């Protein structure tokens, strides 16, 4: 679009501030997601043996830093810190599963639109609309009623329902790319299709989309598990998940016991924030490149 020179809305001072904020955001994402990953590795490979089931009946619902519990204890006298670390297991692998399903199939489906006619586009649009028509939580409840409450089913559903979104984004991107020279050139060069799709389209031109969608997918996995935990269909105790920790703790919130629920709630918030910021930063990078 042909734009005339507009007055800049921000002063230079603000630009510097902005840049610093951006850097801080990236740092924040790295720290949060890094620590989640560390927690996962530590507990997965038993680097430090943590017991999430040991109950201490003498100290039930204690605030942080009492009786040797760093973050206090929950309603059964279990150590909140240990459970917080081990709670990452509930999300990481199942979340990755959900994300990889949606990314893999979404990307494939989307890139197929490069060759396919209008009908495939229509299918993608329609299925996107289909997904918009039913709330995710409702589908999950249906699945739970028909099959059973299992975190992997939940993640499967999240993964599948995200496929159309990813596919839609990719196909839009392809629309923009379709007329670009390199596609014409590579088609003319008879570049193998898989190289064209995976390397030229998906890797060079769509990876930001994929990364941001992956981040959003992870965020959604966490969010859904939390909601389901409240409804009683999330990860079941004694296996810890942040969602069921908040749920269990919030039973005591109205009696004024804030600790045991707010600690996992804040953990959820910071991780969700990190994922969203990550997606945002990535999208911003994308836009920057585009406007050039």
């Amino acid at each position: 679009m042909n734009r005339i020179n507009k007055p800049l809305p921000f002063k230079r001072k603000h630009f510097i501030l902005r840049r610093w904020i951006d850097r801080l955001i990236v740092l924040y994402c790295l720290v949060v997601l890094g620590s989640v990953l560390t927690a996962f590795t530590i507990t997965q490979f038993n680097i430090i043996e943590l017991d999430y089931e040991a109950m201490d009946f003498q100290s039930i619902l204690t605030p942080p830093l009492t009786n040797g519990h760093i973050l206090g204890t929950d309603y059964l006298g279990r150590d909140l810190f240990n459970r917080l670390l081990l709670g990452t297991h509930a999300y990481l692998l199942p979340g990755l599963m959900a994300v990889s399903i949606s990314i893999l199939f979404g990307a494939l489906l989307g890139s197929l639109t490069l060759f396919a006619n209008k009908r495939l586009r229509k299918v993608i649009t329609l299925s996107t609309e289909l997904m918009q028509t039913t709330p995710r939580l409702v589908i999950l409840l249906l699945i739970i009623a028909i099959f059973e409450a299992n975190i992997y089913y939940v993640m499967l559903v999240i993964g599948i329902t995200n496929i159309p979104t990813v596919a839609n984004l990719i196909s839009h991107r392809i629309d923009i790319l379709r007329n670009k020279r390199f596609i014409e050139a590579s088609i003319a060069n008879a570049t193998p299709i898989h190289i064209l799709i995976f390397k030229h389209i998906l890797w060079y031109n769509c990876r930001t989309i994929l990364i941001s969608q992956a981040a959003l997918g992870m965020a959604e996995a966490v969010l859904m598990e939390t909601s389901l935990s409240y409804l009683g269909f999330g990860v079941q105790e004694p296996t810890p998940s942040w969602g069921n920790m908040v749920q269990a703790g919030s039973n005591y919130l109205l009696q004024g016991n804030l600790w045991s629920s707010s600690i996992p709630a804040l953990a959820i918030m910071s991780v969700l924030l990190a994922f969203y910021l990550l997606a945002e930063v990535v999208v911003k990078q994308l836009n920057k490149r585009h406007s050039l």
Partner: protein
Amino acid sequence: MKRISLTAVMFLSLWSVMTVSATTNTNTLIYGETKRPDTLDPYTSNEPSSLRLSQLMFNGLVAINERQEIEPDLASSWTVSKNQKIFTFQLRKNVTWHPYKNRREAFSAKDVIYTVKLLQHPKTVSARKDQFANIFKVEQIDDYQVRFTLKNPAINPIAIFNFKVLPYHVLKNRPYLNKKNQFANHPIGTGPYIFKRSNTNRQITLIANDTYYKGKPHIAKIILKPFSDNNIMNQALSFNNLDMIVSVSPRHLSELQADARFTLKAYNTLSYSFFAYNQNNVNLRKKAVRKAISHAINREEMLKAFFNNQGTIISGPFAPGSWAYNLDVLPDNYDPQKSIALLKSLGYKKTTNGFIDSTGKLLAFRLRVPIEKNNEAAKRVILAYKNFLKDIGIRVNIDFMEREKWKRAIFKDHIFDITYAQWSFDDSSDISTLFHSQYNMAWGNNFISYSNPQVDRLIKQSLSSTDHQEKRTINHRLHKIIADEVPYTFLWSLTQYAAYSKRLSNVRIHPYQFFDNVHLWKKN
């Protein structure tokens, strides 16, 4: 901008319409339940919430009030033959059924006879069929007289006639009764309150029966409000959105007791919690394994930590408030060393992962429990139980299930190793259906498939005995045997409390049926 203000005006007016239509009826009793009633008729559901409701809408021939007195209800008088086997009831003449298809039929002997017939039908599914088992035949003498003949004399023969009478004119096309029957959701009774509607969330509205034979109830309307969140229910009571809570969670007891606006009332003291062991499991069939489990859990500590010690630890299949409780039997103490020794003596080997049996398989059990979002106390017990068993080397996999699924698995199909539940009894403290091998069937109460000829014999003897002291002795012996056999790990008996606002007066709470003489209750 105009559009926005227009929509805003539209919605505000919508609200105001809703507000105007609200009629704040002060003469309404709203009570909160955490478990929704399954069905609304007196027979097809075995849940306390349904029982409470049927008490509001139905009458029996006789009633047993909270002071254990037999009162005439639909029967105004009766005579008993000398051998205590033939009962002739004179029925009331001024009783009408609730309106059905806008008509109020009169109550008569037909209804009584049909009820017995319906409940004795083999296809009828009801937990209360036992009550009709001893009825040999029932005859109509005239429109207002019926004669019952019992098979055997029993200790409280008159008590069985407190069964709720169903309307013949509504059910005449149905040879038997089950949950799918329309009647289960549109009950027609003779009681003080008429069923008005039940919405999808099972909020049930009942209105006063103007022609109730004991007189029109003082409270015009009763609403059962189901809550899916215990905390919220408690808040609702303390902020006057509710008049009554039928069961207060232990967590909220102190709060409510300190509040001068409410009365706390204990009821249903004859109940206890337990872990039940399926006898079809190869390992759990061994008594020593069950005994080892019972010794491995520290009940005192759990009771103190989870229930503020608001209960008593029990040793056998009766609640301590029952006449049948054998005070000489003491509960198994907490002794994990003894558990381990017991298991070792059976040939199980202890490894770092836990005990293994002779084939090298880990000793592991599947504990199936319903997902009880409200009942985190139960969850605590289950998780602590798992931990206690883990400490001695038995693995327990907890399988949380949706409530309906759980019921099916436990009571119908008996697919489980261990489960956790709670029994509640009326004053007869009758455990015959729990442990007699005859009730080892789909939807039978002996869902653990327990079978012990000695116990069977004692139960039969207890049921046929007409001597009070003999009955007590037999039940004390049953208590001893069952406590020793540990088909369940008996945990504790917790007192249930109802809380109600002081605006209600004349309230009487029946220890088992809850609503007693509800037509006399008042609200100011």
